[in-house]
């Protein structure tokens, strides 16, 4: 087991609101650990609309999702947050001395005074293929990610999808698996052109198979896959032998383990007060799209405001004996020192 990280704050979610919370906490001398299931910062801004314009960030007439993320990362740099990407907080326990023990799915453990939930619409998780009974095959034969390529050695692998994940794994598993079949609903691929060319070359050489269609049924027993039925582009139905299926249908948002933290959820949202943005559990705060209160607007700018007020409350909890002096970054030398500009 890895060593437990002792800290003041764990922020759950590295979307824009979680990132700006690092800034507001940092001005109050509080360092944060930030956990996100994605492999990079930005949350929905990075995953759903990196190239799309946002018009309602004050002071920025137009910024893309990725642009906003990059700017925030730049802005919070002085505060040295520690990021834990590709991890999700799997469990939360309250301790007798009013701290929280958090454990991620990767086994990282935190012992923290404060938890800030900035989880937006929930955690991004792989979208399941729309096939009846797919759950029965999960883990044994249906995999949404490749952890060890060796698992597929000597197997007939069906990869479904047309994006980079599908194409990358088609190319990587072709020399490992006994046979790789790539299935996609149309003969056009979103993946990088170079990967598509490589894939087509392997198809021409007879190394892998390409099938155009949609999987409709899984055939097998006790979670062990034998074949899939697929409706092909010409309307005919075919059976394709396969020991394993790797569907890559992108990501969807699921609330995830937060549901089990005893926070009196209302329709998958976390109710908070509007002074501290604290949940019904003292020491756990919720900011951004994940929270709810009368008049709530799911706007990034609202999440920034919530983060600022949350930071004041969290600072009082973390350092109860310290007086907080309200200061402006424009004029305060002490804040400017923290920002590295004075």
């Amino acid at each position, binding site marked *: 087991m890895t060593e437990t990280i002792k800290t003041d704050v764990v922020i759950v979610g590295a979307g824009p609101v979680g990132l700006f919370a690092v800034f507001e906490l940092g001005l109050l001398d509080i360092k944060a650990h930030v956990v996100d299931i994605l492999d990079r910062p930005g949350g929905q801004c990075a995953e759903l609309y990196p190239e799309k314009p946002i018009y309602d960030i004050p002071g920025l007439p137009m910024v893309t999702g990725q642009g906003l993320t990059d700017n925030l990362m730049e802005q919070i740099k002085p505060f040295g947050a520690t990021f834990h990407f590709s991890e999700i907080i799997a469990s939360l326990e309250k301790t007798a001395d009013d701290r929280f023990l958090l454990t991620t799915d990767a086994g990282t453990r935190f012992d923290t005074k404060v938890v800030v939930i900035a989880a937006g619409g929930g955690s991004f998780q792989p979208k399941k293929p729309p096939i009846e009974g797919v759950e029965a095959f999960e883990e044994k034969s249906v995999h949404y990610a490749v952890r060890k390529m060796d698992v597929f050695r000597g197997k007939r692998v069906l990869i479904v999808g047309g994006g980079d994940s599908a194409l990358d794994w088609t190319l990587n598993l072709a020399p490992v698996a006994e046979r790789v079949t790539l299935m996609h609903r149309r003969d056009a691929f979103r993946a990088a052109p170079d990967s598509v060319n490589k894939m087509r070359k392997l198809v021409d050489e007879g190394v892998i198979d390409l099938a155009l269609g949609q999987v409709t049924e899984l055939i097998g027993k006790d979670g062990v896959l034998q074949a899939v039925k697929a409706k092909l582009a010409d309307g005919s139905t075919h059976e394709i032998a396969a020991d394993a299926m790797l569907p890559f*249908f*992108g990501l969807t948002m699921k609330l995830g383990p937060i549901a089990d933290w005893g926070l009196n959820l209302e329709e998958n949202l976390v109710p908070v007060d509007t002074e501290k943005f604290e949940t019904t559990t003292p020491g756990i705060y919720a900011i951004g799209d994940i929270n709810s209160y009368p008049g709530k607007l799911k706007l990034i700018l609202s999440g920034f405001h919530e983060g600022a007020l949350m930071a004041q409350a969290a600072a009082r909890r973390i350092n109860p004996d310290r007086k907080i002096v309200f200061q402006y970054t424009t004029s305060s030398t002490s804040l400017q020192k923290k920002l590295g500009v004075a």
Partner: protein
Amino acid sequence: MAKITFIDSSGAKRTVEAEPGSTVMENAIRNDIPGIEAECGGACSCATCHVYVDQAWADTVGGPQPMEEDMLDFAYDVRPTSRLSCQIKMTPALDGLVVTTPERQG
């Protein structure tokens, strides 16, 4: 104002009034039409506002742009007249449009 009729997977029909220039998805959300989720809020980024355009309207509505076609890869049971309803803008020519919502969104 133009009319849009939504038919759900069980065959129930709901007709709503749509402002010109609004998207079919916006009208679905505004009128609490079941079967449209629109997770991303209309950015053509999630494929959870998938509809089947009625055959009689398919030509008038037209087909998806390449970006929308890419997103349709993530939708459930894609058919020849599948569209993302956030990408269909209402015009006077679309008055009376009929779309069917799929059994499920992704």
